[in-house]
């Protein structure tokens, strides 16, 4: 298998493959962060998470089209505005959904699964009616195209580097918000003991709504970042939802470190295996390994020790 390559080539292939894995890792982390808040902290199974992501992608696409037609001079910077808009749009929709649907179901987690699946079907059809069934792709500004030549045989795409930087930035901000800020403390208090948190004066309903909105907003940013890598269609979200849930569960639902570690191991395993076999078999083996490990360690890699 390796006979045809020289040692240097092999090294570069592994670096490039590893880098492809890192981009996949960034996308997984972005998608899983929102879900780790919604599922891990709040315990809501949000099957419509992928659709919130797609909303972010569509918002990005609309922003880029708007800049292209009306503000071509500022096109190179549209992406930063698009990300903010995606966050606001997905977050607002998330808060609306929480108010209409989710808040009635906090005691019935399995039912949130069914209800949000229904929501995802409605959103998919809505996207199809509004944006059409065809996949849309975003035109990248000039500076994001091309790649950095690290050595003669290793080159890394700039948009991949950008997505990775974005991921690091967002992960750090989420970690800060959840673990250092006053609001994050309130969220965790509400999650751990809703009644007690209410008794000490936290407005639990408001905290719930903003937490759900934050989770969905991060999904929107993930979708926005996703437009740089692939194209977006009405049903794209569904493709990723199981992977994302596995990432969160595998890492240990309530642990941010766990989410990142599991996203890293899953994406690296998959992209390494893809080098040796077909993509579908690599995926099967990765998922099988994840399910197998989950059967041995049901609480995930980094389970928090809590009394139930």
């Amino acid at each position, binding site marked *: 298998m390796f006979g045809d390559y020289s040692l240097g080539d092999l090294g570069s292939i592994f670096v490039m493959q590893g880098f492809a894995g890192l981009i996949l890792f960034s996308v997984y982390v972005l998608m899983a962060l929102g879900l780790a808040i919604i599922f891990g902290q709040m*315990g809501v*199974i949000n099957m419509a998470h992928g659709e919130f992501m797609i909303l972010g992608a569509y918002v990005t696409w609309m922003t880029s089209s708007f800049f292209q037609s009306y503000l071509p001079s500022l096109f190179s910077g549209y992406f930063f505005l698009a990300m903010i808009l995606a966050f606001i749009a997905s977050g607002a929709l998330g808060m609306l959904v929480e108010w209409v*649907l989710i808040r*009635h*179901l906090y*005691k*019935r*987690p*399995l*039912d949130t*699964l*069914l*209800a949000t*699946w*229904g*929501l*995802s*079907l*409605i959103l*998919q*059809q809505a996207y*199809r*009616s509004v944006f059409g069934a065809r996949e849309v792709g975003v035109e990248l500004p000039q500076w994001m195209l091309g790649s950095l030549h690290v050595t003669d045989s290793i080159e890394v795409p700039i948009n991949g580097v950008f997505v990775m930087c974005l991921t690091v930035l967002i992960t750090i901000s989420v970690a800060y918000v959840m673990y250092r800020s006053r609001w994050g403390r309130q969220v965790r208090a509400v999650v751990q003991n809703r009644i007690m948190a209410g008794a000490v004066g936290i407005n639990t309903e408001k905290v719930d709504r903003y937490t759900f909105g934050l989770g969905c907003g991060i999904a929107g940013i993930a979708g926005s970042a996703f437009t740089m890598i692939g194209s977006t269609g009405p049903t794209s979200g*569904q493709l990723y939802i*199981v992977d994302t*849930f*596995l990432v969160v*569960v595998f890492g240990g639902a309530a642990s941010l470190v766990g989410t990142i570690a599991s996203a890293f191991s899953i994406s690296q395993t998959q992209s390494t295996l893809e080098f040796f076999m*077909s993509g*579908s*078999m690599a*995926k*099967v083996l990765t*998922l*099988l390994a*994840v*399910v197998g490990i*989950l*059967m041995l360690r*049901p609480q995930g890699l980094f389970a928090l020790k809590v009394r139930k």
Partner: protein
Amino acid sequence: MTDNRFFNRSELIGILVLAVFLVVVLPLTLDVFRLNLVAKYLTYAFVALGLVICWGYGGILSLGQGVFFGLGGYCMAMFLKLEASSVENTKIQSTPGIPDFMDWNQITALPLFWKPFNSLTFTIAAIILVPGIFAFIIGTAMFKRRVGGTYFAIITQAVAAILTILIVGQQGYTGGINGMTDLRTLKGWDIRPDHAKVVLYFFEVGCLLVCIMIAQFIRRSKLGRILVAMREKEDRVRFSGYSVANFKIFAFCIAAVFAAIGGAMFALNVGFMSPSFVGIVPSIEMVIYTAVGGRLSILGAVYGTLLVNFAKTSLSETFPELWLFGLGGLFIAVVLAFPNGLAGIWGDYVQPRIDRLMPSRKSKPDGWTDSSVADGAPAE
């Protein structure tokens, strides 16, 4: 009131009404095309029936029932496919006597795991045993370690995803995305013409009624009561000395076997099997059939399946765009407004009026059947 141990009067009447509806009313009123559609819907009713036991009564939501439906269906389809690829039928292939998709994928000999499917006895045993054993393995691995609820749901979903990718990826062995098509005969008896469809329909209804009886038996036996107790307060059942995991495994296996029988019927009735009935989306749709019918009602599962599928066919024929909105709305409505589905509506609104009309037949409330949980969904 003569109360049999396994039926009270209204349940017996309910089953008889369903039997008459399926055996007499539908065949007399529908043409063969529509009857075959009903037969296709009823294959999902097997799955819904299993979900009533496993989800409604046991509290275990499996989002991977499509896996078992698919395993049963593929077992049956493999037998039928081998019969359809006899040497004379496949003369034009470079290696006659093997299924056409293997020939297209440069596989020249029948793979080892296909060989036993030349025998019908083995196939029937496989339809029951393969999904049963598979469910047993998953169930043992999960329930012995006390994994339940949402985690179980997500892992079954992952299993459904794995199986779909595997089937699609291993095109030479499974027919890939197209599945196994062009199934013709069962032991030399052509399954394609109209009269065969009618015979298969009645055979299927017979099987369904047997499964309903089994489900009813489970529900009314001590086993059913333990399942409900487990769903409500798992720890107390465990402290009382019952092996909670074993009961859960049993419920999950029963649901898997029912689903597999449905899948096998599907392959027979529809004449093909493909991975599009295995994955996550069909699995969740199967859950919604149960939810619409009422997760605690055996008969509700059958009616719910028929109703949702009828609505799907007629709505998606005329208003393809409305259908997804309708289905999504249905999910939300079932969860928010009537968690016990059609059966809940019947039990809450229709049954009391009937009882009022017939005061002599006062149905006595029994503590552990549907009425006790009609006011809300089962707790985790």
